């Protein structure tokens, strides 16, 4: 199924939730979705007969300066088609519904995005830091991140 057809199905099902889409002349066609609806969309694309996106390839956080984004790269093992979903939230209230209940692989990816970007995945069963120490302060991949001088008495910048 082409990106255009996938977009049409999503548009029919979730009118008003699809904020933007770029389907041509880009390496990966993407559909931008209202952040609070991402779980509903995830459940739909996973279970819909025509789409069956059962494989979440990658979930990445991105800092767009002022906004935080999450990018979902989806793939269907049955139909062998892909789509990219994107959501954006304000940096001050970075709340995104967790899709862990749909794709279990999102568990660690979301923990990583929480760790490095401070994205708050609502409904995640175990949202804690994964790569950095539990007592680390701040979220390093944010563009305005300042490296702390000391961590537990140890000098940080080398």
């Amino acid at each position, binding site marked *: 199924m082409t990106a255009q057809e996938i977009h049409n199905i999503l548009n029919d099902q979730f009118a008003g939730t699809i904020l933007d889409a770029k389907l041509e002349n880009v*390496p990966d066609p993407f559909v931008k979705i209202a952040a609070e609806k991402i779980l509903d969309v995830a459940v739909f694309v996973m279970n819909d007969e025509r789409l069956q996106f059962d494989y*979440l390839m990658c979930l990445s956080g991105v*800092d767009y300066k002022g906004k935080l984004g999450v*990018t979902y790269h989806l793939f269907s*093992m049955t139909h062998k088609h892909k789509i990219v979903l994107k959501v954006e939230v304000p940096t001050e209230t970075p709340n995104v519904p967790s899709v862990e209940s749909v794709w279990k*692989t999102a568990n660690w990816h979301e923990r990583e995005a929480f760790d490095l970007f401070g994205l708050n995945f609502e409904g995640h069963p175990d949202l804690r830091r*994964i790569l950095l120490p539990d007592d680390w302060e701040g979220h390093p*991949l944010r563009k305005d991140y300042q490296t702390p001088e000391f961590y537990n008495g140890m000098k940080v910048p080398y």
Partner: protein
Amino acid sequence: MSETIEKIKTSTGHVLRTEEMVVNMGPQHPSTHGVLRLEVVLDGEIVVDVIPHLGYLHRCFEKHCEHMTSYQQVIPYVDRMDYVAAMTNEMAYVVAAEKLLKIEVPERVHYIRIIMSELQRIASHLIAIGTFGIDMGAFTPFLYYFRDREKILELFEMTCGARLLYNYIWIGGLSHDIPPQFVEKTKEFCTDFKKTLQEVNDLLNYNEIFIKRTANVGILPKDLAINYACSGPMLRGSGVNWDLRRDDPYTLYNKFEWDVIVGKGEMGTVGDVWDRNIVRQREMWESLRIIEQAIANIPEGDVQKAIPKRIRPVAGDAYGRIEGPRGELGFYIVAEESVTPYRIKARAPAFVNLSVINEISKGAMLADLVAIIGSIDIVLGEVDR
């Protein structure tokens, strides 16, 4: 953890208190293949829960990338992610970057990249199976395999001067063309290596002790594997006929003839530890087939012709993925109009494959947990990045 404490009376009349126990495994533990720490909840010898703790080898790879002054500068960092399969790491990053920049490379570059990737896949599987054998108490295959791995590393050293961290595959080309004797030596290697493969296959995989340790252990069902986005031998071991080289082809893999190896549950159940191991073992034969086809038909050409002088992409993003030795290795690159990458996310197969460990270890014995970790084939450099 359950709070119940049972009291058991022994035949001598003594009262035994039983309760669940938390055992810390790692980060310095020979069977965790690096600095992985597992918090294991045990009921006697039975595993109740496994909580992995990562990050002991976190080197801020993604943060470093945002401070580069060129897209090419990322490549040496990429090498150090999965340090036993640096070639395929470079390949994945370069596939993603070339997708973003819309660069077409000469056919000769494709051929050499494929040969290098497949040699690297063999080298990586040799470590995986060799160390896994040690975990299971078989020391000999490790020695045989490391001897032959050294021959692959010599081929790499001959080509680019480095044994482990190559900086060889560049965006748009390669750092060096292959030396004149490379073709001959690679053919020689392919012939010699088949003997070792057959020998170790007979020694290890059908050894009764080995089968008893691995069959019906750590069973990963098909649906769970897909839901956890497992990939590589982990997914194929569960009976999913899936290989990115065939199903989402990159470079020129669709030109070659080879088979995708799938676990069939020959010794136990589909998706057990034995299956994952045998998939790696048989995949090496297929890699040899690809190498032999590629090495016989390398076209002529300039391997540096398509290397861009200055890389300044238009704003956008691209996700490129390849079939690494451990599975789907992907790079998500977000670019703005600048020479510095805006954001690079590495989708490391070992990271994703490891996340399923809790599901497949429940109910296993503690000793089987060692087998399960070995069969996932993690490299902590890649898990922690």
